[in-house]
């Protein structure tokens, strides 16, 4: 589902953000990517989303060679990847319904389909009753659920979550992780970048640890490796 072969990424300043990363993620995997700030986790996510192009190496996501992807093909490619961010990135002036529906509008799903799909996904994330609320009227946990609903409404085979619990309290963090686990159970490949030691250690999933742009450990049913 996701293949990285000897991927390097250097920014214009010359500092290498990723240095020879190789990685295989199978369909239906649940993977944590952990590491300190500056270890290259966010760069990895940006490469997978084709926000960045690798300096060298190959990246294949869902059968698409990301490095060779033409600019006009990027939107279609991204529609197969759900993405959730630490800061939720919701459209602040639109309500919950519109934020989620937007992901369907961009792929031109008929309005009558959207009217069926949005309430269904909102009830999956437990927000069926708040479809009229604006993001500012929601708690952090609720906003992240909206972001999750938006990421999932098009049934993407891959979900990338970049620090999804970074702005949440422990209770909400666990609820979001349970949702991610449930989504994974339904067949979606899930990659979660996180700093949350408790969650990583408790969930016993595959854990890839990065440090200074390289993978220092990749363990099935692993735990958070203490840098100190």
């Amino acid at each position: 589902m996701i293949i990285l072969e000897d991927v390097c990424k250097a920014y214009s300043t010359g500092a290498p953000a990723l240095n020879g990363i190789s990685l295989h993620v199978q369909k239906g995997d649940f993977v944590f990517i952990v590491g300190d700030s500056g270890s290259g986790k966010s760069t990895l996510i940006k490469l997978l989303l084709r926000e960045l192009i690798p300096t060298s190496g190959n990246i294949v996501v869902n059968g698409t060679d990301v490095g060779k992807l033409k600019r006009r093909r990027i939107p279609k490619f991204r529609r197969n990847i759900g993405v959730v961010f630490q800061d939720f990135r919701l459209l602040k002036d639109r309500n919950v319904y519109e934020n989620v529906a937007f992901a369907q509008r961009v792929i031109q799903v008929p309005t009558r389909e959207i009217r069926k799909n949005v309430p269904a996904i909102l009830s999956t994330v437990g927000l069926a009753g708040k479809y009229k609320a604006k993001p500012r009227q929601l708690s952090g946990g609720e906003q992240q659920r909206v972001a999750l609903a938006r990421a999932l409404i098009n049934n993407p085979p891959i979900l990338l979550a970049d620090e999804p619990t970074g702005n949440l309290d422990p209770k909400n963090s666990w609820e979001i992780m349970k949702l991610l686990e449930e989504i994974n159970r339904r067949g979606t490949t899930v990659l979660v970048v996180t700093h949350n030691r408790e969650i990583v250690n408790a969930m016993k999933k595959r854990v890839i640890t990065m440090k200074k742009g390289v993978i220092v450990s990749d363990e099935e049913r692993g735990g958070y490796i203490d840098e100190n």
Partner: protein
Amino acid sequence: MRISTLFYTLKQGFKNILRNKTFSLASIATIGVCIFLFSLFYAVVANFQHMVSMAQSNIAVVVRFDPDISDSQIQEIGDLIRARVEVSKVTFISEEEAWETFKEDYLGEYADGFEGDNPLEGESNYEVFLNDVSMQKSLVTYLESIDGVRDVVRSEMVANTLSSVNSLIGYVSLGIIFILLAVSIFLISNTVSIGVTVRKEEIGIMKLIGATDFVVRAPFVIEGILIGVIGSLIPVGISYLLYNNVIEYTLSEFSTLSNLLQFLSVQDIFAFLVPINVSLGVGIGFLGSFFTVRKHLKV
């Protein structure tokens, strides 16, 4: 594109205007001021040019004939003159008509002393009016070369002055219109740029969800066009009211100059200004939003 997507995009364009009221008002005001200045300038220039061309149309060269010329020869000369492209109108003035006009213009009651006598005998002539006074020189050269023509009376100074004034107005208009457009585009692209920068994050989110450039850009472009249309119609309305009042005021205050001050009608001015202003507004709104959004699409 699906009909529902089209309607959604249109709706978002309208909603964007309301969501970003301050930015929308600033953009409408900027476009409005620029187009108002353009309208004002156009009205002044168009009227000035109209007055100059009215003055030009009253300038004629007078063609006088050799003393022994026959009526048929005069007729032939008239046909030759009428065939020229420079000529708009040719009027034959017989010696009797020339004398009558002279008496009315210069002698009045003193003309009685010339009872039964015509001092302008043999002074019948053609008054030749031109399409464009700048063509006077070439026409006069031709007229002087015709057999049977004694001389051609013209005022080169008036013709040259009017012709120069007309060219000057043309050049100055072009210059000022160019400056106004450049200033408008600069001001509008700045205003649009601020508006789009504020929504840079929103554009980024749309792109990461998988929106195409078209889907991201369309509501901004619709918003730009709507702002352009509103920004162009407001100054049209204001200048329409202003134009009527200014003309009425000028004609009542300077009634002695009414022969010289021949203004274009409000219909003449606005038949040109309305489509041009709306096109300018739409064009500026479209280009301003299209290119400013483009900068933020590379996500």
